[in-house]
């Protein structure tokens, strides 16, 4: 609401896109760096579609190419080949002048904020508006709205050196949103912040996404960031996208080792090796891991399992968490019983549409 009541001809007005059409399309993107040591392929034939209103996480280890990928999205990095289509425009085909115009429709925030030290908070937020040639009076109205949006009204005339990391990133966000962009690119935006501040910045981004319908692309190496706010995720490894999709489906059924590694950082479900070894001495027992999602997470599955099948269960590890608004749980059990009973237990679990993984088979 706070962003209403402000208009300028020089702004790109938010256009609603035709149903389901992606706002950002990356087609066969390749980025190579040539140096005397040889050619480095930073992005190897990446294609992705990002829908309007999504919070799209791109996760990868350092050096995987994720930063290059996000910088290609506003052409800070010029692709070697391929297309970057944002709101129907192929950025790689634009003239310098057109590109500058289009960049006002794509905000960006950075790990190290990159605010102007010679300007106050208000002047920093005014900066992109000055660049866009917005009249002074409109700038001051707009800056007030943005200060309110990010909760920094009282810091308006402070210089950036007097701000904490979280406040600096709030200024960065306000500045990136000043020209009312359709897209916000976040390059490791929370990586320099403590966990508490990270959470408050993520909440702010989620609010903005919901209030303004802003499409957010986030680069991160932290799975907890993806888990916290993303709707979709792509895992990038060695310059390629190894898997992508809605966050829930990637979390439940990761296809790649690297995705599994990332998921285990937020849902640790590996039993220590020595514990597994000790347990394996048991006869007639196996260790299974069960994953639940949504309503299944609140069903009394274990009780039903024990009543229906004649097995005993020893709970080794369990966790339950939210994945956006969905409950997401995992439970590691030691099932005790003879082979027939164990088979029966598996049949029961399968009938409840639970994902079951056997970590240790019965001897």
């Amino acid at each position: 609401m706070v962003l209403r009541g402000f208009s300028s001809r020089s702004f790109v007005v938010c256009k609603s896109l035709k149903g389901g059409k992606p706002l950002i399309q990356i087609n066969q993107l390749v980025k190579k760096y040539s140096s005397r040591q040889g050619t480095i392929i930073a992005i190897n034939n990446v294609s992705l579609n990002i829908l309007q209103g999504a919070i799209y996480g791109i996760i990868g280890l350092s050096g995987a190419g994720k930063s290059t990928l996000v910088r290609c999205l506003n052409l800070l990095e010029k692709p070697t080949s391929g297309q970057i289509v944002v709101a129907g425009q192929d950025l790689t085909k634009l003239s310098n002048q057109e590109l500058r115009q289009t960049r006002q429709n794509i905000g960006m925030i950075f790990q190290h904020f990159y605010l102007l030290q010679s300007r106050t908070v208000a002047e920093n937020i005014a900066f992109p508006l000055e660049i866009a040639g917005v009249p002074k009076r409109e700038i001051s109205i707009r800056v007030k709205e943005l200060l309110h949006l990010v909760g920094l009204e009282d810091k308006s005339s402070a210089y950036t050196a007097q701000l904490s990391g979280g406040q600096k990133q709030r200024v960065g966000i306000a500045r990136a949103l000043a020209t009312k962009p359709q897209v916000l690119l976040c390059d490791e935006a929370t990586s320099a912040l403590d966990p508490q501040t990270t959470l408050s910045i993520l909440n702010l981004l989620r609010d903005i996404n919901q209030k303004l319908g802003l499409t957010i692309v986030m680069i991160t190496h932290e799975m907890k960031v993806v888990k916290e706010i993303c709707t979709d995720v792509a895992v990038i490894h060695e310059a390629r996208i190894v898997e992508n999709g809605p966050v829930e489906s990637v979390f439940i059924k990761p296809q790649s080792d690297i995705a599994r590694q990332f998921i285990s950082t937020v849902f640790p479900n590996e039993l220590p090796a020595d514990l597994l070894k000790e347990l394996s001495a048991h006869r007639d027992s196996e260790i299974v891991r069960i994953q639940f999602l949504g309503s299944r997470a609140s069903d009394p599955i274990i009780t039903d399992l024990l009543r229906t099948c004649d097995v005993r269960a020893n709970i080794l590890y369990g966790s339950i968490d939210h994945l956006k608004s969905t409950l997401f749980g995992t439970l590691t059990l030691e099932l005790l019983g003879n082979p027939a009973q164990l088979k029966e237990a598996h049949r029961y679990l399968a009938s409840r549409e639970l994902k079951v993984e056997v970590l240790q088979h019965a001897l």
Partner: protein
Amino acid sequence: MPFDSSLLFQVTFWTDLLRLIIPATGETLYMVATSTVFAYLLGLPLGIILVVTSPGHIMPNPWVERTLGTLVNILRSAPFIILLVAFIPFTRSVVGTSIGTTAAIVPLVISAAPFVARVVESSLKEVPYGVIEAALSMGASPKQVIQKVLLPEAKASLILGVAITTISVIGYTAMAGTVGGGGLGNLAIQYGYNRFRTDIMIVTVVILVVIVQTIQSLGTAVARRLTH
């Protein structure tokens, strides 16, 4: 009647002070101020071009960067006393004379401008490239990056550069006497050294120290005020 030599000394000292030192101080200040201003008119744009055309900056252009860089290096490697003489024909064509205080300003500018270019270059390179990229990501043009990011962000460092440049120019003006430029440095040589007037030598040095000290303190104070 004993001759009071100390009284005579005092009289000569004070008349010389008025007759010699005051005009010389004026000449030095005039040469330093004018040459510094003109050196910046040439050196500041040169420094900006050296930075923005460097590899990976906003307008990379190896050809321009290398040509200007070489020119700057050549001018900086020539000793000032050589430039002073070598540029006499050029000086005459610019200011109409090759002798006098104004004539000394031309070689001073030629010598100081490349120095300014390097000082400006190093100040502008202190601006983190990320800040420049942030401006580019908002759609800033190269002109806007220079005017709204590079120069304002480097302001404090640029001011310190002005102090450094001004002080070096003061040093160079000592040689301006070669072309009849006058100034405190020349006075120190002519009277203090050649005529054994140690008193004039000392006063000259004290005035120079005061000028240098004032400029440096002023530069530091302004730079501190500009740092937030």
